[in-house]
C-alpha cells in the first residue's frame, strides 16, 4: 500500500516535472527550473522534520567511518572517472591512439575487477552486495534498467536533432 502510493506520487511528480520545466524554460527562463526546487524541497524538509519518525541507531562516528566501504567506493569512483574521461577525451581533445586516452581507458577498466574483488572479499558492508547478482531475475532487472536508461539518455539527447535537421 505504502509502496503503491509512493509509486503513484513518483509517477505524478516525474510526469509533471518535465512539463513544468519545459514551460519555465519557454516562458520564464531556465533559471526558474532550479529556483522552483527551493520552495519544494524546503517544504519537504520542514514536513520531514516535523513528521518523520525514524529509528536512529546512534552509531559512533569512528565506527561509522570504519563501516564505510572505502575500497569499493574509491575503486568504483576511479573506474567511472577514468573510463569516462578517456572516452570523453578520445577523438576530441586527444586522438584515440594517444597514450593519455589509452591509459585512462585501460587503467579505468582494470579498476572494475578491483571493485568486484573488494565487494566480494574486502568489506563487511559493501556498497553493492554481490549476492544481489546471484539471482538471475535480479541481474535481468538491473540489465533492463541499464539498457532503458542508456537508450533514454541517448534518445532524449539526440531526439531534438532531427527536428532541427529536417
Amino acid at each position, binding site marked *: 500500500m505504502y509502496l503503491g502510493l509512493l509509486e503513484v506520487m513518483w509517477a505524478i511528480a516525474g510526469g509533471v516535472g518535465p512539463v513544468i520545466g519545459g514551460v519555465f524554460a519557454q516562458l520564464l527562463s531556465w533559471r526558474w527550473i532550479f529556483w522552483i526546487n527551493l520552495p519544494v524541497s524546503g517544504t519537504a524538509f520542514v514536513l520531514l522534520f516535523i513528521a518523520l519518525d525514524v529509528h536512529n541507531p546512534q552509531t559512533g562516528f569512528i565506527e561509522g567511518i570504519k563501516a564505510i566501504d572505502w575500497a569499493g567506493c574509491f575503486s568504483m569512483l576511479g573506474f567511472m572517472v577514468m573510463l569516462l574521461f578517456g572516452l570523453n577525451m578520445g577523438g576530441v581533445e586527444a586522438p584515440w591512439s594517444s597514450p593519455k586516452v589509452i591509459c585512462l581507458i585501460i587503467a579505468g577498466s582494470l579498476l572494475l575487477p578491483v571493485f568486484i574483488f573488494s565487494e566480494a572479499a574486502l568489506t563487511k558492508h559493501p556498497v553493492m552486495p554481490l549476492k544481489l547478482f546471484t539471482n538471475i531475475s535480479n541481474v535481468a532487472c538491473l540489465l533492463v534498467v541499464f539498457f532503458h536508461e542508456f537508450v533514454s539518455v541517448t534518445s532524449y539527447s*539526440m531526439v531534438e536533432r532531427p527536428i532541427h535537421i529536417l
Partner: protein
Amino acid sequence: MLLPITVATALGGIATGIVIYQTGRYMEMIWIGMALFTIGNGLLAYLRENSSVASIIGFQIIAGLGAGLLFEPPLIALQAMTTQEDIATAIGTIGFIRSLSTSLAAIIGGIIFQNGMDIQAAKVRDIGLPSEVVQDLSGAVAGEKVGDIYSKISDPVKVFLVKEIFVWSLRNIWITCTGMSFCGLLCSFFIKRKFLSNKHVESKTGLRKDSSENNV
C-alpha cells in the same frame, strides 16, 4: 521539440503507476514498455532526409510511452525478489546502475554521432561549402551547430546533401538504441514473477507495511 517525448514518457509513467497500483502486473509493463521502446527507436532509425515532422513526433511518442512504462516496474521486480534487509542496497544498486548508464550513454551517444560525421568528412568537403561551414560540420562540434547551419547555406541542393550527412550520423545512434533496447527486451524475459494475482499483491504489500512498522 522535446515536448512529445517527455509528455509521452510522463503519461506512460503515470499510467504504469495506476495500472500497477490496481492490478500488480508489473511484468507485463516491462515487456510492453521494452517492446514499445524497441519499436519506437527502430522507427526513429527509419527517419530519412525527407521525413515529415509529424512522423518524428509520432515515433517520439511511441518511444516515449515505452520509456515511461519502464521507470518503475524494474524497481518493483527487484524489490519483490530481495529480502527486506537487502532492499535498501538493491535500490541503491539500481540508482548506481542508472547513473553509470547515464554517464556512459551521454558520452557514447556523442561519440557515435561524432564518428558518423568524421567518417563522412570527405563527403562534406565534396559538397563545396565555405570553409567555416565545413568546420562547423566536423566531428564534435557538429551536434551543437545543427540548428544554425542552414542559415549559412543558401543552395537547396547543398542543404539536402548536408541533411543527408546529418541524418546518416543520427541513424547510427537510433540503430544502437534499437539494438540496446532489444537487448533489454530479451533480458526482461528473464525476470521472474513473484506474484500473479491481486490477492498476492495485498499479502506482499501487507508484509512490507508490517516490516516497515517493525523498523520504526
